């Protein structure tokens, strides 16, 4: 096995064993630290020790028993859900518009949609904070959702635009020549065929909002204190294993969403 050629260069597996070691270590480095949090969340001890001295659910009870954590969780999920609806709807419309438009203007609009990915988040955060201070949107649901929508829109536009690239617009033309109006043709012919891309975009929008930290630090608060802002403050002050319980739940959400997105992509590949 080790003396067999590994690639077209005829290098053998044995001679590039070091490469496998480096990659294995890199993968461990990427994946293991986050997963270590899960057993710790079931520890019976307050101090950190691995493996834990005993098992208990006390940190989950502490989390669920705290009104502040519960409210922050609800706030975050409400904000993420609302962001997903707005960003997916507007992002899909924009991607559709850009796919049918031609020329320099379309490129310019696409570039403008990408700006939130490029501009450092701290800058968007203080700018939005400044704006919200004038119009009273700080610490409101609308304020948080609009700010998160800004961050989610580019991802939805990228994902849906990629889906539209492999879709033949002439199908819509055929529907319209048979009497369908453009909105009807879009809803009944185009949308069903790009639904996987739209769903992937929606998942990305949801996770973007749920995980957004920097902007939330500035514009969230009061009744609309997000989970990330509360976690950030807790991590800065003192670390108590309640965070491990919350982290484990968030990891479960991440795995669920990542799994869903990989499943969607696999289905997209096989449906072609």
């Amino acid at each position, binding site marked *: 096995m080790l003396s067999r050629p590994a690639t077209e260069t005829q290098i053998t597996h044995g001679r590039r064993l070091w490469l496998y070691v480096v990659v294995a270590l890199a993968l461990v480095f990427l994946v293991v630290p986050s997963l270590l949090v899960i057993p710790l969340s079931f520890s019976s001890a307050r101090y950190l020790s691995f493996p834990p001295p005993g098992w208990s659910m006390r940190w989950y009870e502490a989390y669920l028993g705290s009104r502040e954590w519960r409210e922050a969780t609800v706030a975050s999920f409400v904000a993420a859900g609302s962001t997903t609806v707005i960003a997916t709807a507007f992002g899909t419309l924009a991607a559709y518009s850009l796919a049918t*438009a031609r020329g320099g203007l379309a490129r310019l609009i696409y570039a403008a949609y990408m700006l939130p990915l*490029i501009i450092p988040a701290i800058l968007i955060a203080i700018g939005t904070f400044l704006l919200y201070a004038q119009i009273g949107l700080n610490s409101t649901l609308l304020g948080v959702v609009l700010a998160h929508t800004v961050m989610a829109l580019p991802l939805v536009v990228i994902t849906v635009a990629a889906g539209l690239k492999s879709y033949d617009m002439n199908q819509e033309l055929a529907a319209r020549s048979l009497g369908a109006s453009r909105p009807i043709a879009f809803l009944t012919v185009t949308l069903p065929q790009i639904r996987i891309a739209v769903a992937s975009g929606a998942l990305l929008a949801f996770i973007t909002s749920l995980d957004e930290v920097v902007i939330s630090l500035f514009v969230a608060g009061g009744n609309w204190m997000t989970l990330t802002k509360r976690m950030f403050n807790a991590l800065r002050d003192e670390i108590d294993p309640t965070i491990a319980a919350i982290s484990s739940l968030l990891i479960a959400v991440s795995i669920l969403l990542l799994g869903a997105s990989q499943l969607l992509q696999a289905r997209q590949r096989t449906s072609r």
Partner: protein
Amino acid sequence: MPGADPVVPGLNERALAAAGRRERTALAALALPGMAIITVIALLPIVWLFWMSFRNSAGFTLEHYLRLLHPNYLLTLKTTFELSFLVTGICMLLGYPLAYLTAQAGRRAAALLIVLILFPVWTSLLVRCYAWLVLLQRRGLINSWLIDAGIIDAPLRLVHNFTGTAIGMVHIMLPFMVLPLYATMRSISPDYVRAAANLGASPMQAFRQVYLPLSVPGLVAGVIIVFVLCLGFYVTPALLGGGNVMMWSMQIERNVTYHSDWGAASALGVVLLVVALGILWMFGRIVGFDRIVGAK
């Protein structure tokens, strides 16, 4: 592309052209709602910050920018660049082999590797910071393992300093290095390397003279993304640096929350934006913007 009406010159030509224009306008308008949100919530306030960075109570001024020459700010600038270079370098060293093997793996193995590489991206930033705090702090897991094993006597200072911040940032940036590299490497045909081997190149020669140059665009894209993200990074340095690592973005936050000094904050922000966009623009011309933006 309005309906199927045939064009009859001189009769309905103009009406069709007008209908076409109306339709194109309507289509372009579909991009407006999202554009409006981005413009009002993010872009206009940044223009406002730009304006504020040149104003004081007397009118136009450069004082906010001149203040950035203070040694404190210069030290922050130095830390920010040092950390960004270091993190980008480590990401290159780890990311290249990772992308290389993933690009060569079979379909199933590659799918698994991609999931493992994407897993951190989908995991909350704060969860990952917490994990590193748990591992690296004074009474954290790594120190207690090392002490129990008898390797060290006193705990190492692994976090709340430059080291911990660098480790946490590499963890977050590595996938952004791997993904553009992987995309580029997958499009390199194995035939080139096979041809080199057939012509007598050793594995090392074939890699260095054929494969490596072909993978450079992906490497450049990865380096640019990671470097620019590092420059503006806030969360990880704020948590893992423990106040001992002052990044550019943290100076901005400090000036707003502690001092309400919008002049300094906006000047710092404008400099950060100009540097970040400048780097992207420069390298966007070299490797193409699509590669940089599309890699997310």
